[in-house]
């Protein structure tokens, strides 16, 4: 019989050699074992990532183009109103290019936040039925979003070259910018996804927070607009600002980023991830009871 062939095909190991897992009344927390387990569930993570990408690119008529059209269209609007009419400063770079570079990072961050914070609630039926590390759904959103980011880069970088910001060695710092924003997005994304299971207020507050974030980050204005006394602290505490600044200085400015500020911002983004993961592991045990 076809159905039973699978069961008999696998040779069973000695029963007493199997790992024993204890489900206890502890508080949970960020243990090394939880990270090891996440690694052992990497196939599940990849399935979530693939599914996200497939659904995102198959469903829409424009598919891939859609991902690029949105930030570019918004950059054009900003360029017209803020660049042309309001004459916002852009540090000697064409304003469109300037704002598109900021939007590249911001678009990835805000899209990821919006989807990741709902990622556990929308998988409620799975959470109630199947075990996998609960951090996987928001994590998959953060990773799958990198494809979108790559596509926007595929528009930004050729545009930079055509306006004379030729490829230089400083472009090698771009991965640093990406790393900072990914770490920050992961930390905040999993934190919000977790809290959202208990308080749906997160879903309601998200659009507001993201609009606020657009103005708190140097997307439409240069970081030089921030008073010089606070400028470094501002970039360190808001890693998205540091990420945008690294991208602008390396691609548009042809200069390496400020190592001191960038290093501390990177450290803080790791700190955000650590805080997010710690809180997440402490509240994830009751997800299935609440979702």
């Amino acid at each position, binding site marked *: 019989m076809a159905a039973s062939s699978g069961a008999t095909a696998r040779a*069973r190991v000695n029963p007493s050699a199997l790992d024993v897992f204890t*489900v206890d*009344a502890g508080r949970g927390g960020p243990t090394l074992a939880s990270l090891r387990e996440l690694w052992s569930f990497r196939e599940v993570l990849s399935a979530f990532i693939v599914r996200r990408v497939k659904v995102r690119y198959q469903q829409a008529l424009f598919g891939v183009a859609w991902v690029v059209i949105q930030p570019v269209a918004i950059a054009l609007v900003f360029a017209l109103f803020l660049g042309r009419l309001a004459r916002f400063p852009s540090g000697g770079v064409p304003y469109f290019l300037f704002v598109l570079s900021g939007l590249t990072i911001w678009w990835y961050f805000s899209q990821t936040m919006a989807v990741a914070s709902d990622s556990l609630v929308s998988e409620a039926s*799975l959470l109630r039925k199947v*075990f996998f590390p609960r951090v996987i759904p928001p994590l998959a959103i953060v990773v799958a979003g990198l494809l979108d980011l790559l596509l926007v880069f595929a528009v930004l970088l050729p545009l930079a070259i055509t306006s004379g910001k030729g490829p230089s060695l400083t472009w090698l710092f771009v991965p640093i910018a990406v790393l900072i924003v990914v770490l920050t997005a992961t930390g905040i994304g999993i934190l919000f996804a977790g809290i959202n299971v208990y308080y749906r207020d997160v879903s309601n507050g998200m659009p507001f927070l993201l609009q606020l974030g657009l103005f708190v980050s140097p997307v439409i204005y240069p970081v030089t607009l921030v008073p010089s006394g606070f400028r470094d602290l501002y970039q360190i505490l808001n890693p998205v600002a540091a990420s945008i600044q690294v991208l602008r200085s390396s691609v548009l400015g042809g200069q390496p980023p400020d190592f001191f500020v960038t290093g501390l911002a990177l450290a803080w983004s790791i700190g955000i991830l650590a805080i997010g993961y710690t809180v997440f592991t402490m509240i994830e045990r009751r997800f299935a*009871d609440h979702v």
Partner: protein
Amino acid sequence: MTAAVTFEHVSKSYQRGHAPSFREDTTRTVRRLLFHDVPRRPQVDALRDVNFEIEQASSFAVMGPNGSGKTTALRLISRITYPTAGAVRVRGRVGALIEVGTGLHPELTGRENIWLYGRILGLRGRDIARSFDSIVDFADIGVAIDQPVKQFSTGMQLRLGFALASHLEPDVLIVDEAVSVGDAGFQRRCVQRMAALHKSGATLVFVSHAPTLVASLCQTGIRLNSGTVEAMGPVEEIVEGYVAEAIATETREETAAEPIKVRSWDYQFTPRRGRYLGDLAVQVFIQAPTPLVDPVFGIGVSRPGGASLIGCSSRANGLSVGTVSGNMELRCDLEELPLEPGDYEVWFTAMDDRTGRYFLAPHPLGPVNLGRPPRAAAGSFESVGTTVAPVVVTPYRWEVIRDADATAAGQAAS
């Protein structure tokens, strides 16, 4: 012997009521800290200090009425939820044969869902590659495999989800009522699959309400009731106890839940001279322990143990009784019954006019005799081997239109 699953003093309580809001929780916390007067959110105990062991490679039944904690126990084993106190120890990989059709993504094809959901359920890529055809066979979806799942019928979706879950090769296999999904052929495949996995060394944990299936698949088990272990041992004892408990509960519920009881009843039959019709008066003495608003009563006559012939509704009669509480005596006069004399039954019912639900389902009060059937009753004909016994009478008149000779003559002429 090694234990595959061990429950050590396991308790699990859930918070009762609606989902918390941030505002409500904050207010509660602040008031508790400041005034110490707000109780914590009320809790429901799903399991209370539960202890048991499931032996490696055995097949184990978990039985009990709804709400007894069966599903919570399974969720603890599969790490979906965590205990409030105590610990559950599980040896090896756990796989659940559960209904996961709702987890499939509607926009993706059957094939894509097999690869993606298979992995999410815990199948490894190489397992899926090896048993892909078997999964498609099991789900019986055939050529639909490359269509989006949203175009699948509900049955196909359920079967696909279940086929994926059933191809897990866990050390501990959990089955929660899933066998009730799909048609008989599909159910048979599920049971075969469970038996095959068990035979290959997996521990089987089976939750079901079906006593015969449990008895045929399991060796030992426990019976839960209100979150505690009521019995533990050989499956025959568990099933027996479960069935006895279910019957006892049913009887208790029937007697407790009836809003109206008939204390006593009586009838008078007054035959009318010259006709077969008579008058029947039925009195019912009822008791309603709790107040009932505007009940509708029904009294009727049926053949003994058979079809109802007459029904009289108090609503059709325009009788409004208001709120009934305590004892009440009712009387219904049925005049000029169009029935042959004989033995009949009287039934009674009461229902809620607003919801249409029965306060008391129609049930016979007892036999009534509506006159002794005459030796050669007008409507009774006995012939060789057959008896015609009409029930209903109606005024009638016989006459001869043409006599026999005339008919014969007419036929001969044509």
